[in-house]
């Protein structure tokens, strides 16, 4: 069987297009909001994502080898006439491996154990995201975004608009935007009992962000985002173990999910060390009772004229969704149930290291990330750890050309 878990409750999957959107005010450079990019650039990145095998003691049945994803990304940005610019992001992924299916109670008072899906055949995902920015003046700019992604069981169309206003006298940039995503799920093997034939979901996002330059080496940004998800938000490939039935039932989640995200970012340059500090914080809260904190710290160290080494550390910790359980003794009154590890209480630590070499008009970078999730990293005490929590490494090689 296929080992895919449909998700897609937010329009935040691809942030690439906003990379330069929330620029530091007043700067005439490639990071400035109120001027189009000066020259064309091409970026390429190849990444290998590898999940660690699930431990034998946690595995009840199915394949121990989890997901592997190979990704190729291409990004092209270019000026377009005198007052506009263009960005195109292409992404091609191939995925294979097994993923968590449902969880059974441990025998003899032991910990619960994971039943995995069988290993999948190779699947692919293609994604194109485009944006056109227009600069009405040195202070006002707007951007239109349009994207499409396709997998053999999932299609998403998204669009959005963003507008930016600079207030140079106060060194402020205010950016606001709205986005919309219309997704369609057509699970493979629809003939399986209680698997849907097809379903749709939509996601609407609105955000506002304020960037402030504090001095000639420090800038901060605060953001507030509201997301409303509507439609089929369950996972057609996941099941839930019911003790009273001695059998599984389908994963079932509410048809609506509202999310609030508050974020704060700091950039600080230290001339004496020729390095830059990044501090990113995000608070997430939704009406499924999931609430989380994310802290990301990075230090960009320039070495000599052409090298840059960047170690980073990320912490993520979340509370569980109210209808989550590793397994259930009986049906909940509301009928909802999910054993998805992503809705369980846990925390995750990830370490990244990035090395970049610059040759003027060309640069190359190598990146490694190691991510580990565990219940004991959660913000609150967790009595039962979900056995499906993930551990992965990503290796990537990136190239950048100024055309």
């Amino acid at each position, binding site marked *: 069987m296929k080992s895919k878990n449909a998700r897609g409750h937010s329009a935040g999957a691809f942030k690439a297009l906003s990379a330069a959107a929330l620029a530091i005010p007043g*700067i005439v*450079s490639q990071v400035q909001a109120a*001027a189009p990019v000066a*020259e064309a650039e091409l970026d390429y990145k190849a990444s290998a994502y590898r999940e660690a095998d699930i431990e034998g003691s946690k595995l009840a049945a199915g394949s121990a080898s989890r997901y592997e994803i190979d990704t190729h990304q291409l990004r092209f940005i270019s000026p377009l006439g*005198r007052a506009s610019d263009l960005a195109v992001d292409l992404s091609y992924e191939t995925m294979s491996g097994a993923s968590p299916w449902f969880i059974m109670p441990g025998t003899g008072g032991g910990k619960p154990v994971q039943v995995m899906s069988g290993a999948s055949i190779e699947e692919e995902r293609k994604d194109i995201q485009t944006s056109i920015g227009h600069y009405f003046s*040195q202070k006002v700019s707007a951007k239109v975004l349009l994207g499409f992604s396709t997998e053999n069981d999932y299609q998403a169309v998204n669009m959005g608009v963003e507008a930016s206003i600079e207030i140079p006298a106060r060194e402020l940039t205010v950016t606001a935007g709205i986005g919309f995503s219309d997704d369609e799920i057509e699970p493979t093997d629809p003939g399986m009992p209680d698997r849907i034939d097809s379903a749709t979901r939509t996601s609407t996002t609105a955000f506002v962000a304020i960037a402030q330059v504090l001095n000639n080496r420090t800038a901060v940004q605060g953001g507030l985002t509201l997301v409303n998800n509507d439609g089929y938000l369950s996972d057609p490939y996941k099941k839930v173990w019911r003790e009273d039935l001695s059998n599984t039932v389908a994963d079932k989640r509410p048809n609506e999910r509202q999310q609030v995200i508050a974020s704060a970012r700091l950039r600080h340059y230290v001339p004496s060390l020729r390095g830059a500090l990044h501090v990113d914080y995000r608070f997430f809260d939704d009406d499924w009772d999931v609430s989380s904190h994310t802290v990301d710290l990075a230090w960009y160290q320039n070495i000599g*004229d052409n090298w840059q080494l960047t170690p980073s550390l990320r912490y993520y910790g979340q509370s569980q969704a109210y209808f989550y359980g590793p397994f259930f003794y009986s049906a909940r009154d509301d009928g909802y149930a999910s054993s998805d590890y992503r809705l369980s209480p846990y925390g995750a630590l990830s370490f990244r290291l990035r090395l970049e070499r610059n040759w003027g008009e060309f640069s190359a970078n190598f990146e490694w990330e190691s991510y580990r999730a565990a219940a004991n990293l959660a913000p609150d005490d967790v009595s039962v750890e979900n056995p499906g929590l993930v551990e992965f490494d990503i290796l990537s090689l990136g190239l950048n050309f100024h055309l």
Partner: protein
Amino acid sequence: MVRGLAPVLLSVMLFLQSAQALQIGEKALDFSAPALLTPQPIQLADHSGQVVYLDFWASWCGPCRVSLPSLDALYHEFKTAGFSVLAVNVDADIRDAKRFLQTRPVNYPLIYDAEQRLPKLYGVKGMPTAYLIDRRGVIRHIHEGFRPGDEARLREMVRSLLAEQIQ
């Protein structure tokens, strides 16, 4: 006596001017500043009678990656007709400017202003900003930013300023 007063007058002028941006139609303020790559200082008055494009740039400025090669092309085209580009670099670290020039070398005179006295004198508001000065030393055009198509527009302006006679 008059010569001795000049530096005092200049500094008073600098102080008064620092708060005020220069406007189109005003006389360009004279200065003498160290060159970026050579030991001899460069003085604006040395170029009197010429049409001068006085450009303020920095290695970190995105549009400058486009403007410097464009200005070099204009300089080659019109230097024998009496046109010059004077480019004032405002980088905090001169090494950044030199590294930039390795990949984008230019032939026109380059000034390095460590104290960033000149951008204050001219009241520069953004990077890059340039002042197109006619043969009589009057600012005729202030060019902020640098976008695709600007080279052609500047070529026309330079051509028409070169055609003007000094009265």
